[in-house]
């Protein structure tokens, strides 16, 4: 990262020529805007980013991009056509505005901006996506660990042509069925932890040798005299071994099917792999919604303000920016008709602002709650550290301050079906801060939100029935209809019977069971 200078807006006087006046822009304007933003993002904010590639697209192309989850080259599937029809209908009836921008975590980082945007909006979008999101993609540990920004475009290209070739060779229908099934299991197609590496022969031998040496070193004849445990050897040793060989339990169902499903053909495995890798690529984005948007929103806010202070954008443009900025970070309260959950932009931006405040002008409370950062004086350094090393859940758990909870007037309601009424568990007061912060953070823990489903056992030499468990947390069961359909897809891929048990993790009681048999569609 580049060196950091404290913000000194007073020393920079206005009076430079504005980058643009009015709404019109051309490529030269875009270039100047980019360069001006770069001049602030680097020296003033200390951001670091992948090289930028800004692509101008039309509204229709934006709809196209929407439909295939924002990726420029994606394989073809009917569900994207369905989403397109939905979005288009919404857009035409005026129910839905289009996003101003879509940004892709790749190197170079591609930002799509719409041609309809005004020059101010283009500035905002460039500051937001090409610097804010871009910095986050490049620096956050989740993205660094799980995504390959350099390779993603090539991989998508490969995936697209591979699936097109399969369609030519095996027919649309066959490919579509595999894709349907794989899409149904997509959210069960991610690794949440790095897998352990399979040891190679050399290290296996070394370990064996070391074990023997160790045994020799600690050899003591006395142990021989101890009485042996009598009774049968543990009977489930075979089952244990079987599970270990199959790496069970396995929560990445697509991975398990790809590696183990007995009847899939190689091209079908490859398609499962493609869907799985795409899911894995997007997994960090789901885990960092608040942070990612918070980082981008805070960056654009700082950049736009700095541009304005330098006189690089006119007052009219600044007002236009403020108007859309406040729209973006609006958080309706729970009783508002437009309330639809927490707005990640609002929470993210508020938290970033709050952290900057704690760093620069802490109160006594802040010093007690955040002794590490309160009053250290360099807000950007702290923020950059947050952006690099946290995800939503840990970030909120660590940095949501009492003041912000008071500002947002957060409260915690528990809905227990056994009780006649809802209960207010905590509010924004001294007793509630920590409890509420914990529950709030949990709501952003993707692993907590996604149903926890694992492949637990299969007897490959017996009836090959695949057994899955859903750990029904707090006794929340799966939605029956959909679960049945997904299980049907799973059974089709597996080729034999499949059973899913709803298990309460604490007691091990089985709350319900769904099963499915394979239809002969793939084989």
């Amino acid at each position, binding site marked *: 990262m580049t060196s950091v200078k404290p913000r000194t807006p007073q020393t920079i006087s206005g009076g430079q020529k504005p980058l643009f006046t009015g709404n019109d822009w051309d490529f030269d304007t*875009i270039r100047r805007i*980019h*360069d001006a933003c770069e001049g602030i993002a680097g020296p003033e904010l200390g951001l670091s980013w992948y*090289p*930028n*590639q*800004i*692509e*101008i*697209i*039309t509204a*229709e*192309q934006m*709809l*196209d991009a929407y439909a*295939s989850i924002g990726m420029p080259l994606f394989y073809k599937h*009917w*569900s994207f*056509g*369905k989403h*397109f*029809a*939905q979005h288009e*209908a919404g857009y035409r009836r005026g129910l839905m505005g289009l996003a101003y921008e879509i940004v892709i975590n790749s190197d*170079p980082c591609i930002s799509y901006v719409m041609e309809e945007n005004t020059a101010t909006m283009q500035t905002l979008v460039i500051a937001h996506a090409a610097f804010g999101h871009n910095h986050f993609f490049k620096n956050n540990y989740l993205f660094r660990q799980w995504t390959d920004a350099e390779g993603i475009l090539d991989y998508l290209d490969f995936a697209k042509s591979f699936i097109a070739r399969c369609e030519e060779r095996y027919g*649309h229908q066959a490919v579509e069925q595999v894709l349907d099934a794989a899409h*149904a299991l997509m*959210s069960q197609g991610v690794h949440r932890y790095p897998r352990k590496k399979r040891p190679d022969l050399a290290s296996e031998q070394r370990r064996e040798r070391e074990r023997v040496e160790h045994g020799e070193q600690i050899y003591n004849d006395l142990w021989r005299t101890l009485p042996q445990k009598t009774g049968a050897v543990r009977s489930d040793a075979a089952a244990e071994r079987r599970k270990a060989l199959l790496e069970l339990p396995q929560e990445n169902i697509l991975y398990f099917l790809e590696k183990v499903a007995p009847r899939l053909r190689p091209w079908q495995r490859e398609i499962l792999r493609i869907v799985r890798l795409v899911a894995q690529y997007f997994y960090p984005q789901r885990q960092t919604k608040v942070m990612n948007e918070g980082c981008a929103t805070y960056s654009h806010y700082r950049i736009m303000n700095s541009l304005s202070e330098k006189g690089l954008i006119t007052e009219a443009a600044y007002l236009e920016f403020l108007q859309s900025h406040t729209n973006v970070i609006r*958080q*309706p309260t*729970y*009783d508002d008709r437009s*309330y*639809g959950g927490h707005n990640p932009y609002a929470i993210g931006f508020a938290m970033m602002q709050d952290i900057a405040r704690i760093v620069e002008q802490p109160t006594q409370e802040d010093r007690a709650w955040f002794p590490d950062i309160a009053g250290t004086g360099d807000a950007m350094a702290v923020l950059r550290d947050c952006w690099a090393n946290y995800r939503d859940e840990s970030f909120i758990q660590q940095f949501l301050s009492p003041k912000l909870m008071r500002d947002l*007037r*957060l*409260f*915690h*309601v*528990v*809905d227990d*079906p056994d009780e006649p009424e*809802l*209960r*207010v*568990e905590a*509010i*924004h007061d001294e*007793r509630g801060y920590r409890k509420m912060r914990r*529950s709030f953070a949990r709501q952003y823990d993707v692993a907590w939100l*996604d*149903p926890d489903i694992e492949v637990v056992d299969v007897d490959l030499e017996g009836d090959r029935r695949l057994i899955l468990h*859903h750990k029904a947390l*707090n*006794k*929340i069961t*799966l939605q029956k*209809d*959909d679960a049945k359909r*997904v299980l049907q897809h799973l059974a089709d891929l597996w080729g034999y019977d499949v059973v899913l048990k709803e298990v309460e993790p604490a007691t091990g009681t089985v709350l319900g069971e769904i099963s499915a048999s394979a239809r002969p569609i793939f084989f």
Partner: protein
Amino acid sequence: MHIVDRRLNPGGKSLPNRQRFLRRVKDVAQRAVRESAREKDIKDLGKDGRVTVPADGVREPRFSRQPGTGLQDHILPGNKTYVEGDTIERPPGGGGGRGSGEGGEGGENSEDAFRFVLTREEFLELFLEDLELPDLAKRRLAVVETEGLRRAGYTVTGSPANLALTRTLRNSMSRRIALKRPKPEEVAALEAQLAGMRDSDPGRPDVERALLKLRERAKRIPYVDPIDLRFRRFEPYPRPIAQAVMFCLMDVSGSMTEHMKDLAKRFYILLHIFLTRRYRHVEIVFIRHTDRATEVDEETFFGSRETGGTLVSSALVEMKRVIAERYDPNDWNIYAAQASDGDNVSSDGPTSTELLRAHILPACQHFAYLEVGDENGPRAGFVEHRTTLWRTYEAIAKAGGPIAMRKVNHRREIYPVFRELFGRKDARAEAEA
């Protein structure tokens, strides 16, 4: 930093996705489309391509938690009055209440149908799938070409109307530059210089001479020379005919009920939609007849009633006249559809046969005869009654004449009959097999 202008790329990237989507919902969409053909007012057919698909067919299932089961936590913004330990009445409509992001949907209510709009093209594609114009290939080879004119570069001769001004002046300018024709400014400059001189100036004769030289040169080298002229050239080329005329013949005598006319109308409209898909330009000629035939406009054709006997040949004579007058079979693809309840004066049979065989059928691409019947259909128990006209036409068809005939009693039979008449041969063979 790069800026890439993707607008230049053609849009419609998700067109293949849409095609896949339509293929997925094809059965349902096709059913909906044909339903609309049957039930809707046929005038609006294809205009409103709204199709509703049950969500079932395009469902994308995922494992998800059932809302309203188990213990659920909600963190909400904007607390005004609550303190810890308060209880809130459960809002109607299920758990969670304000967590409507997750709460509202789900359950049985979300089984909403998925609605989308087909373009006119897609609608007609589904509507007319597997249909083909009969014997088109054969006819095309023979007569479907005519002469047209198109631009073909420039020529040095031609009529003034075709003068290519830009090209001509470009030639003129290059010639003027090459031959160094004096520019008007140069002449004007010399003139000004001359005007500024007194008679006694020693340089004056030189300037006068130079001016004279320039003027003469300008005269010798004209501004536009015949050699500069260029004309736009046109050349003839064979042009395939893309026009068709559709003859609607109908018996409007008293025996034709409103129901029968409605059946006929539906058939005509299907034919019209079908033809407009194939030909850029389609004209319709309406000929109605009792014992006399007249060419009328659409409204009169379907609307008004006539009384009188029935003489089919009169309509055929009228059609022959119209063809001779306006629709040269060399330029037009001619389709005819006749609707009748089958009555005819028995003495008219041979005349009609002769007219059809000698004049009408050779000129037509296709001649369809639609016998419309009573809504209740042929009464059960009776031996199927063959009408006079049916027998006449059947004889022609048996002799190998290009005539297709079907009987229709009910509205719902129109579309199947239409498909039967125009169905692709192989598709039909498959269906029968």
